[in-house]
């Protein structure tokens, strides 16, 4: 099956810092999503981004499908950004494809 690798696995930053999270995947995909799992366990949709660039406030994401990677940028970090960030993909081919998740990046923002 498709492999999804996220880096770094852990990241500790001071409030106000910027960060870049990376997701590499091993095959062509027709779905790529970024999620934030907050300390209460809720999975929050950040981006649906199988290709291209999107921005939402302090967060932005870029997927280069031809090179099989995606980047999530967080600017001016806040303590509420803490949690685990997951990249998840579904392979090209259509149908009801379940997402394959990476192991996540555990982000801690210190005040």
């Amino acid at each position, binding site marked *: 099956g498709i492999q999804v690798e996220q880096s770094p696995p852990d990241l500790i930053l001071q409030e106000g810092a910027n960060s870049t999270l990376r997701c590499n995947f091993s095959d062509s995909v027709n779905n790529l999503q970024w*999620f934030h799992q907050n300390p209460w*366990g809720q999975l929050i*949709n950040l981006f*649906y981004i199988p290709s291209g660039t999107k921005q939402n406030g302090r967060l932005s994401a870029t997927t280069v499908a031809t090179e099989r990677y995606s980047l999530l940028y967080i600017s001016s970090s806040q303590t509420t950004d803490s949690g685990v960030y997951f990249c998840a993909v579904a392979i090209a081919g259509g149908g009801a494809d*379940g*997402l*394959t*998740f990476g*192991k996540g990046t555990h982000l801690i923002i210190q005040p």
Partner: protein
Amino acid sequence: DTAVSQTPKYLVTQMGNDKSIKCEQNLGHDTMYWYKQDSKKFLKIMFSYNNKELIINETVPNRFSPKSPDKAHLNLHINSLELGDSAVYFCASSPAGRGQYFGPGTRLTVT
């Protein structure tokens, strides 16, 4: 209004019991899914349903059975619960060819 809802939020039960987790989505999506998140926070697809038809079954034990009474509901029945079934179970839904939206999760503890 909650887009994807699950009940119960917490479920504590003994080994050998049978339990069900309910999921409802009010988004009008065609496809619904069940995922399992283990103690190491790894998320894995279990099932998906498209128009009341099972599409994926990812080597899940047959003690687990999804049941979809209609397009808006996908319930998960678990028979003869085992200690290893303890996890957080997430329901999700998606429209055709777009991103998935996750419910709040059900934390199952088997004692």
